[in-house]
């Protein structure tokens, strides 16, 4: 039995089916970096954005499984005092759940009841501006300290016991249109964070700070300066304001000491005439030495992007059998409609394929550069380009189950946009709302069969073919969780939170949450009881098996 918090409820009479439980976790012990690295050893906890530094968003807990998921019941709801989208994935440490009330309030609550221990209010500077909502995707923890990036581009450290703000550092200037919406990444004794704002004239960057003092240790600009390799991929002075923001969680591989981040679109987003060239390292994955911040390798998914195809998906690392050999890979379903398998040690392109309808690229060259289809660029008359400017998928975190070997992605299918030279891309057809951004509330949905829809699919990393599909009417901005009970959890704009069979996608259970699901699910346990938590609308919901 998990000694979560000294709670006194009677233990469930059913056998406790925690797959792997470290010897009785002590009361709220310090979260060391070793614990974060080996979070799989303590599946009752959720210690980083996607569970572990590999970002597999896979829970080893087995109490909820394909046979009993139909018995899931609501345990509690926590309603945020916020009218912003609730995109944060909570952390759970020894029975205490930490999350962010958008934009930047931090809340600690009892993971078993949702009752708050403390709330710390953070008022961002008035000049804080974000492109797409005053949102936050989650916290990081190390020791007894929580870390949060803020929409006024600060990194804030808080005492996990009391919520006291210990220090805050400006990462970049909010006045210059920088912001932060991502969860920080912990590597050893450092906190790594990137800057959003790539739709504005900014220059993307990732910085590392001393976790104790907040002292800046290194900074990497995602657009090379003059004299640096890659600067010549920007015409004129366009490199100075070329975007390439870093606004989603990174991954870390302790074997190579590399930390991986996806980078955003080049700016201006929909008109590349002022920034001729490939525009490195926009729309790329960058592999940085975690100690020095030096670039070790990169792979650019969309050279000279003119469709806002940010590569700011959550990097997912896995050790798999690839074409008969063990391989350390990175799996990536990109906003541009292409799915990738990369060697995460070298950056080598191993495999790529369209996973939705794509008409701007037609295959790859030997090095993995996408082969563009002539004419599929913005034009005066407007060019219909697939997928939509919001992508095939966007920022929502995917999942990988080592049990099934499948890569689970929630994304849009059949999306498209009309790309007009120098203008914001238009909707294709007469339905401007077919691929709208996430909102809080459920909105009337009218797409017909020719327009975009949402899916959760389980992909085989070897073939990048979907083994199964769960189809939704509306599109989805929800993440995916897989568990050792072989259940996949996800949701979408319709406001349903669903449990699917991880092996075939069959719907096992659903709950109507009354608001759009704009976050990634996660799972934890307290006193031997497994919970699944998901944010929807402006609330956080926790489910567990009924008695």
């Amino acid at each position, binding site marked *: 039995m998990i000694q979560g*918090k000294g709670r006194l409820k009677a233990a469930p009479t059913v056998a406790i089916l925690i797959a792997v439980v470290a010897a009785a976790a002590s009361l709220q012990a310090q979260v060391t970096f070793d614990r974060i690295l080996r979070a799989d050893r303590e599946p009752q906890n959720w210690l980083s954005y996607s569970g572990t530094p590999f970002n597999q968003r896979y829970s080893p807990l087995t109490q909820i499984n394909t046979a009993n998921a139909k018995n899931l019941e609501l345990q509690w709801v926590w309603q945020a005092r916020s009218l912003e989208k609730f995109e944060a994935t909570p952390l759970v440490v020894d*029975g205490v759940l930490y999350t962010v009330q958008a934009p930047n309030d931090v809340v600690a609550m009892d993971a078993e*009841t949702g*009752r*708050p*221990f*403390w709330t710390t209010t953070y008022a961002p500077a008035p000049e804080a501006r974000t492109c797409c909502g005053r949102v936050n995707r989650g916290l990081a923890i190390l020791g007894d300290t929580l870390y949060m990036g803020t929409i006024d581009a600060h990194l804030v450290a808080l005492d996990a*016991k009391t919520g*006291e703000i210990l*220090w805050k550092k400006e990462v970049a200037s909010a006045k210059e249109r920088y912001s932060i919406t991502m969860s920080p990444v912990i590597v050893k004794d450092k906190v790594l964070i990137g800057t959003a704002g790539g739709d504005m004239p900014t220059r993307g960057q990732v910085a590392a700070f001393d976790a104790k003092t907040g002292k800046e240790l290194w900074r990497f600009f995602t657009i090379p300066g003059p004299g640096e390799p890659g600067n010549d991929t920007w015409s004129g002075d366009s490199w100075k304001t070329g975007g390439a923001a870093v606004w989603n969680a990174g991954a870390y591989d302790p074997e190579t000491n590399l930390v991986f981040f996806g980078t955003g679109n080049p700016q201006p987003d929909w008109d590349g005439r002022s920034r001729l060239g490939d525009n490195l390292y926009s729309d790329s994955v960058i592999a940085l030495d975690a100690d020095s911040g030096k670039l070790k390798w990169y792979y650019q998914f969309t050279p000279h992007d003119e469709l806002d195809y940010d590569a700011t998906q959550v990097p997912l690392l896995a050790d798999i059998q690839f074409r008969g050999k063990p391989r350390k890979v990175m799996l990536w379903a990109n906003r541009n409609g292409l799915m990738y398998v990369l060697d995460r040690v070298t950056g080598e392109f191993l495999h790529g394929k369209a996973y939705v309808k794509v008409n701007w690229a037609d295959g790859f060259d030997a090095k993995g550069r996408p082969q563009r289809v002539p004419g599929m660029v913005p034009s005066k008359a407007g060019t219909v380009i697939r997928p939509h400017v919001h992508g095939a998928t966007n920022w929502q975190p995917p999942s990988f189950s080592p049990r099934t070997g499948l890569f689970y992605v929630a994304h849009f299918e059949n999306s498209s946009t009309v790309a007009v030279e120098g203008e914001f891309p238009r909707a294709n057809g007469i339905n401007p709302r077919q691929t709208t951004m996430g909102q809080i509330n459920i909105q009337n949905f009218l797409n017909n069969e020719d327009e975009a829809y949402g899916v959760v699919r389980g992909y085989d990393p070897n073939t990048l073919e979907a083994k199964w599909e769960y189809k939704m009417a509306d599109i989805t901005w929800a993440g995916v969780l897989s568990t050792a009970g072989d259940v996949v959890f996800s949701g979408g704009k319709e406001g349903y939170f669903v449990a699917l069979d991880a092996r075939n996608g069959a719907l096992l259970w659903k709950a109507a949450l009354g608001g759009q699901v704009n976050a990634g699910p996660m799972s934890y346990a307290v006193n031997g009881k497994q919970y699944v938590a998901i944010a929807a609308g402006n609330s956080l919901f926790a489910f567990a098996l009924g008695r």
Partner: protein
Amino acid sequence: MTRALFIIGVLCFALPAYAQHETASDIEDGGRVFRQSCANCHGPDGNEIPGIDLGRGVFKSAKTDDDLVRIIQKGVPGTPMPPTNMSEEQAKKVVSYLRSTAASRTTATAVGDAARGKTLFEGKGGCLKCHRANGVGSRIGPDLTRVGQLRRSAELERSLVDPAAEVLPTGRFYRVVTRDGATVTGRLLNIDTFTVQMIDMKEQLRSFTKATLKESGFIPSPMPSFKSTFNTQELADVVSYLVSLKGRVN
């Protein structure tokens, strides 16, 4: 900002006081509103604007409580004193609070030295065993990092010599006894009909379902009196130090 321009004229003690009619809870409510809405500029003692000492009934233009209510609601045009969205009832409670503090104001017994107070706070007083200031000390008691913004010197002095006289809700202590006889005490963080949350004496965040407890209830604060620990000068020094705590400095 010319803070001196806040309220115009000087008056000691206006007369028909709401204090004749208010209840203790009105005064408490008024104090809460004062700390949230007024103390940022006027200071916790109400004396941080030259020429004005709200806690001693020293105003610039107000002659009556009605004048004060009007100023609280409408501000003073042409000065940094802004209008508020307080109701008349709220404003009256603030006035009642100010009157009560003026009436109970203790005379400073000595001039304190904050540096000496810090040494006493961390040494002889042993305050860090329970309290925290600027990231140092225990989390069991209330964090004092900003106490100088929140509490007046008279209140701080009283907390030191007679700590049971007034315990803020955030400083209340709670005790539970579990079915297996274990006793857990701590500072109360949250309580509802069915559950209770606290930070216990080992600085652990704890949550209990009441139905699983043998006993539960409030207990007196473990804060001791320092009346015989500190002499008059030392007390003034510690108060000075506490008043100087206006928030974390990084």
